[in-house]
């Protein structure tokens, strides 16, 4: 990554995540196919309900006859972290027009959020519409097309695991976490390391005591509050 903020660089910076989208997107498409979703239904879900984890929930809840309210709650709760991510990013685009802001916000994902946060460390805290939009669109296209491909090829490819592609998205978060750790200046590295430890412990506990749909958001909120406490007591 570098400090250039144009559309071409946005595309280039986002390419590493495409492998992750292909791996998970195909897996999603294959499950959709197995659960009786047509290619059109699969594609439309990715376009309209653009959220990885929520889509995995929907492909099992819809055929099972779950109520609309329970599906709405599951998807919203799983994606509640979007609210925090968008709150973190939105101030960076204050100078852009409102329509552009909303368009960017509409397509933010875990991946493009993490990329943008890492990019900030190379650009002295600046982001712009061109870079973010290019990144978002590459991600949106990769995700929707991978899902469609998975659904279409559902009969042929039953095992994306042999290729190790299921690890792509995990590797990406690990990589972005590492880059964040070595480049972020806003929090001291000791504090960041402590926060990684705290978050790992809380995530582990969260997985035991919380329903799967609520784990990420609850752990995130609690960890951030713990972080504020630690900062106030030890890093003043």
């Amino acid at each position, binding site marked *: 990554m570098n400090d250039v903020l144009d559309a071409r660089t946005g595309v280039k910076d986002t390419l590493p*995540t495409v492998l992750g989208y292909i791996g998970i997107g195909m897996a999603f498409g294959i499950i959709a196919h197995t659960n009786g979703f047509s290619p059109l239904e699969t594609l439309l879900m990715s376009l309209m309900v653009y959220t990885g984890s929520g889509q995995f929930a929907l492909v099992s809840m819809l055929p099972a006859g779950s109520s609309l309210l329970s*599906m709405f709650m599951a998807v919203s709760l799983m*994606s*509640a972290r*979007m609210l925090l991510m968008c*709150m973190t990013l939105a101030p960076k685009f204050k100078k852009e027009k409102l329509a552009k802001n909303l368009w960017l916000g509409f397509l933010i994902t875990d991946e493009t959020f993490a990329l943008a946060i890492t990019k900030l460390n190379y650009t002295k805290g600046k982001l712009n519409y061109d870079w973010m939009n290019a990144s978002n669109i590459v991600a949106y296209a990769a995700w929707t097309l991978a899902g469609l491909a998975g659904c279409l090829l559902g009969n042929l490819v039953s095992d994306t695991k042999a*290729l190790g592609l299921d690890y792509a998205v995990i590797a990406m978060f690990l990589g972005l976490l590492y880059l964040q750790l070595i480049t972020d200046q806003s929090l001291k590295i000791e504090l960041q390391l402590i926060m990684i430890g705290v978050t*790992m412990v809380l995530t582990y506990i969260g997985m035991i005591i919380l329903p799967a749909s609520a784990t990420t958001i609850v752990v*995130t909120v609690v960890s951030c509050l713990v972080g504020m406490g630690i900062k106030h007591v030890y890093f003043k």
Partner: protein
Amino acid sequence: MSISSKVFITYLVCGTGLAALRLMPFLLLKKFNLPKAVVEFLEFVPIVIMTTLWFSSLFTAKQGHLPQIDWQYAIVTIPALITAYFTRSLMWIVVVGVASLALIRLI
């Protein structure tokens, strides 16, 4: 190909919920500034979210049970981190991670 109204309405309702979560911050923060405490809270969001998304992916979780670790994923953390240290390139981290996992499964 057609799409049933039940499926379409489900997409529409869930999609609207998602849009609200994503758009509200962009809509409101265009006009207003965040209080200092919230800004401080949000400083922790990147490191915390990336940690929890990565770490939880290593496990299969079931409420009320101990999470089951996926040892293959856990082991691949080592080559991925070594790659991260030497290349600082996201592309290489992903490629080496995926290739290492494929290799482990082959063996």
